[in-house]
């Protein structure tokens, strides 16, 4: 066996032994499997939203003359408020994790519920917005711009909805004692997803609503 290889080997083993001293999970990266998986999944999600945002960008001004396109019906103040609500939910998510890290299950449940509530409020705003737009004559079928608008924002809304369900599930789990502060990382990972969905909304709000045609 090559001596060089052996040397490298022991170096590595030592290095890894050192890493375990810091109470990292027993993995090569020092990051738990669940977290690596969530990051990988979010990487995939980037392309999902990337494809949708590109499509919207291509189509945002494509509307046969006389049809209502998204930029004609936007209510920027209203959407700004609902965007602010969604962004605030990231703060409550952080507070929930921080509480759970301090083994304060009660506060963690409160903040998780608050996050879910803010997310649901955002969703409510989106549904309201959709109904207003439809009443003003812009439906999925109106033109490519409207199709791209509804599919992109609807897809994001679905992600928020899944997030709300996930948060509520966490609240129930903590309540039933199935999720204890030793596994606070679960909240952190759910938080990764939640923050990601928020960041995507920042991009969507900018690209879809704020950028002029």
């Amino acid at each position, binding site marked *: 066996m090559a001596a060089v*290889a052996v040397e*490298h*080997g022991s170096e590595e083993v030592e290095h890894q032994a050192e890493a375990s001293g810091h109470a990292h999970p027993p993995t*090569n990266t020092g990051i738990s499997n*669940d977290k690596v998986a969530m990051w990988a999944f979010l990487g995939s*999600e980037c*392309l999902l939203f990337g494809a949708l945002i590109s499509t919207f960008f291509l189509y945002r001004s494509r*509307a046969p003359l006389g049809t209502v396109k998204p930029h004609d019906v936007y209510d920027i103040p209203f959407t700004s408020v609902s965007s602010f609500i969604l962004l605030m939910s990231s703060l409550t998510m952080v507070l929930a994790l921080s509480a759970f890290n301090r083994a304060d299950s009660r506060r963690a449940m409160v903040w998780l519920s608050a996050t879910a509530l803010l997310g649901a409020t955002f969703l409510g705003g989106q549904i309201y917005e959709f109904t207003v737009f439809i009443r003003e004559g812009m439906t999925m079928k109106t033109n490519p711009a409207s199709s791209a608008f509804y*599919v992109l924002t609807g897809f994001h809304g679905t992600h928020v909805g899944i997030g709300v369900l996930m948060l509520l599930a966490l609240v129930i789990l903590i309540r039933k004692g199935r999720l204890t502060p030793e596994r606070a990382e*679960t909240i952190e990972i759910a938080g990764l997803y939640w923050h990601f969905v928020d960041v995507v909304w920042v991009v969507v709000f900018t690209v879809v609503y704020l950028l002029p045609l």
Partner: protein
Amino acid sequence: MTSVLEPPVLLPEDPRPIASGALRRPARTDGFWSWITSIDHKRVGIMYGVTAMTFFVIGGFEALLIRLQLASPNGRILDANAYNEVFTMHGTTMVFLVVMPLGAAFMNYLIPLQVGARDVAFPRLNALSYWLFLFGGLFLYSSVFLGGMPNGGWFGYAPNTSIVYSPGHNIDFWIGGLLITGIASTVGAVNLITTCLNMRAPGMGLFRMPVFTWMALVTQFLLLFALPVITIALFLLMFDRNFGANFFNPANGGDPVLWQHLFWLFGHPEVYIMIMPAFGIVSEVIPTFSRKPLFGYKVMVFSGIAIGFMGWGVWVHHMFAVGLGPVSITAFSISTMFIAVPTGVKIFNWIGTMWKGSLRFTSAMLFAVGLVSMFTIGGLSGVTHSVSPHDRQQTDTYYIVAHFHYVLFGGAVFGIFAGIYFWYPKVFGQLLDERLGKVHFWLWIVGFNLTFAPHHILGLQGMPRRIYTYPEGTGWDFWNMVSTVGSFIIALGLLVFFANVRRTDKRHKRDHLTVEADPWDARGLEWSTPSPVPAYNFIESPEIHAVDDWWHRKYTEDEDGRMQRLDDYDKAKASAEEHLKPGQAVHLPSPSFYPIIAAAAIFVAMFGVVYGRSAGANYAITGLGVLVLVCTLIAWALEPSTEPDDALVDADADRLLGLAPAGSAQAELGSGDGGGDQPALTSGGSSGGGAG
């Protein structure tokens, strides 16, 4: 510490009954139900392989129909619509239900073994991937009984797939089936990436991973980033068809070229998704049968990574005829020429590996050399496409058909069969008959070239793709007949392979033959554990000191670089045969019902999407499916990955069951993260995300 495997423990004297959740935890270790509920990466890999091989027969049958129809002018075997269905399903099947899952079969089976783990990172998600793939395939083929198979080509170009030109449900089944298999591959990618990054044995740095595992990792990253693009394309098409959106509807301002961009932005990385596992396989086979280390290990890895990156910058060469303007055509011509460089590096490295090696031309080696030579031909005709004036001439002709069959059949499928002959003894504990294997190879290499080499000529003569027949007097008769004859020789070769499997099984059972752990005197870690691999993979955590660590436990080199057998050779060989001792056991995660239920729920939900177009009430089916899915995922999250008192593998039971050939019982398998306790809850959480 890395993911050191939990050492064996003593069996409890009085095992308690298994804890129950919403559903009773499955406990069978043999028979039908044990396969349904299995989460063991080895069983999942075998199921992937067997299912994909079944689809290979179906897709091959479709190919024969195509060839019979085109054998002579004015063919009457298929009418125009049937021909459209058959060539669409041939392409879709071979890409999504054969080559990709056969790659997945190898990756599932081998990655944990090659990195020294007990299982993949998320065993239940792994089972979910398999079931989604199976249900996706069944969904596609259910269209046979429900009004006709998809008929828009595997590329499904808009606006031909719009409701105006394709009012039937054919295309809806295509969308649904591909969406389901897409979820399967995405879940699998997340799982296997985590496994490669996180679960390597102590000492196995990234640059000590076997080349197969490296290529698998690159493939999984390509899947992770390419599949969302096709998913969105399919979603947009579904919204066009089901809800009257205008994405690909030119009548209302939509742009059919957007479909082409989205499809090929997925489609070109997809090409590398299909070929990379085969590259990995031959990188294991060629060194073993050349009795030399792989020439330029790091260069091999980096060229694989380079292909992974550059694969994203060449998609427009599928669209040179669209008219995108000189700038983009020039840019993509250049990038297409460039991507031939890392691929060429690989070819030369394989040749360098064989150079002055003591070559043994086993069936596996023959198929591997088959890949190197046939893929080179396909790669060269690929370079000709990068010359855009030439491409304008050849696009949509049989020249293209020749090219991609040389890379996908001559490349990917030959590579996969090299892998099948190579790892068959490891997986099933039986050595395939070498004589029949060689007959198979020669039938294939002759049949393959007879079938597809004439397509070059036909293409240059101007025969267009996808025509269901052609008139007399075109001058295409002769080469079409040659091609049809060749295709039947390929079919014969496949029959020889199946006969080989059957004969081998009979012979091993009759004579009670077993196979040693390392029958090829090979290099990878998977050969350091018995054949077939026991449920627990390794008794103790292997410690890795070099690339090809197992080889270095057997051999060293003298000053002149000649191979020398170590004194420890026999000891190493004997250690590979060790099983757990009686009374010893290994703690493995438990089987589960939830993966197949979750996959079935998605399957049912997708029917609602297909038929929702005809009547809105049918979306209730989708609602039902989603409801079942959500409940399943919650139950999944609450089910611990490992039941505290379950899944202790008894050494004796394993020896009795595990050594039996495939298809019969193997001791129940599956494991968590190979190191610590897998929090069941978060594993469910990420699965929820994956499904969403």
